[in-house]
């Protein structure tokens, strides 16, 4: 039986952390891209589209991420669609991310004065032009801090993907515990790994919040 040195543990965790980062990145980018059409639908004047998007975000916000992962992994398999843990995790996390981002982004646009829409309309700017040139530049300042803050939730959320067998940081920790019998040390290192990924983002989010808050009140 091979023995694991501390370096072996750290090395394996670092290798697995790449997958945590990659999954987070995929979920965040996928979620961001998916949010754009969702946001347009929710900002549209068609009531059933608005309600549909609201139902979508309520559904994903109101159910545990773990259930969403199970449904993506086992549920799709029931329909004969064979999904890998990676694909299921990326899919579930993308949907989960977009359900929150659509709220953050639309909320940021709704927070702007209604007069901005009216002035744009009176000048003859269309919906797309108004969104792109008038609303978005202002809304981004409001949205950026909560968006970066939410990315922390996504990173931590990837830990659940370990349960459907995707080997990322948490799963690697569980496997290393099984061979080393040192759960405290291993999971301590796992926690440290998450902290090192999340803390800079939280800090950055606070920084952005302060920065934009300060410039709003000049």
């Amino acid at each position, binding site marked *: 039986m091979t023995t694991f040195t501390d370096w072996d543990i750290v090395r394996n965790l670092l290798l697995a952390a790449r997958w945590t980062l990659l999954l987070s990145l995929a979920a965040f980018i996928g979620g961001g891209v998916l949010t754009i059409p969702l946001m347009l639908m929710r900002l549209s004047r068609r009531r059933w589209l608005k309600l549909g998007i609201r139902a979508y975000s309520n559904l994903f916000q109101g159910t545990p991420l773990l259930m969403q992962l199970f449904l993506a992994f086992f549920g799709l398999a029931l329909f004969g669609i064979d999904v890998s843990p990676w694909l299921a995790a990326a899919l579930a996390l993308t949907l989960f991310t977009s359900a929150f981002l659509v709220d953050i982004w639309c909320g940021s646009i709704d927070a702007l004065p209604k007069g901005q829409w009216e002035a744009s309309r*009176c000048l*003859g700017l269309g919906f797309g032009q108004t969104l792109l040139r008038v609303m978005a530049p202002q809304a981004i300042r409001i949205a950026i801090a909560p968006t970066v803050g939410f990315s922390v939730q996504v990173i931590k959320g990837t830990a659940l993907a370990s349960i459907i067998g995707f080997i990322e940081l948490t799963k690697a920790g569980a496997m290393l515990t099984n061979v080393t019998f040192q759960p405290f040390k291993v999971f301590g290192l796992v926690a440290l790994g998450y902290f090192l990924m999340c803390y800079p983002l939280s800090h950055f989010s606070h920084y952005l919040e302060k920065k934009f808050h300060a410039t709003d009140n000049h």
Partner: protein
Amino acid sequence: MPLITINRVQKYYGQNHVLKGIDLDIDQGEVVSIIGRSGSGKSTLLRCINGLEGYQEGSIKLGGMTVTNRESQAREISRSIGMVFQSFNLFPHMTALQNVMLAPRRVLGIKAAECRELAELMLNKVGLGDRLDYYPANLSGGQQQRVAIARALAMDPKVLLCDEITSALDPELVGEVLKVLEKLAAEGMTLILVTHEMNFARDIGDRIVFMHQGKIWEQGESHQLFAQPQTAELKQFIASVRGLGDN
């Protein structure tokens, strides 16, 4: 033929009957002030004229076009009607120049260099030639409102609607905005003003329209209307407005 023809316009907000059959014609080059208590429907009428609000019955015609609040019509309306708001509604992330340039550039498709020239001309016209690169946050209320006027004028509208545009200003800043309107009136611009500045309405306007309870209660030539109000409601309104006649 009048520039704007408003014919028996009725508007409801749910059960609330806000405009009860408005008939009003406005000629090219005319300056019309709409006065009345808050809630009399004067701002709503203005917002119907430029399609920001819809109405249930009657018609509002401008040139050959019937104005509605359909979004697809907004672009066409913007070529004829300019609007200045009480709350300025400048775009805070753009400089004065960029605020004025945006619509000519993106709606009319005028080349950037020409838009810049046009915007400079408009800002000069409102006396802000030295504030081109200022952001709204660094301008006074009066200056912001003048940028808003320049922004509306840059689309070369046939008529300019002003919705209580001095109401949000500190008293000492009102004059500079009214001066711009006087200048526009003198140049022959068609103006429709909803205003609480009674002295100004009397002196700048050709005609004053007094609205009460969703109707045009009384209207007439400016000085005469104030000197000889016919209805009890207008008499009461004039009496309740401080400062009228102090000059």
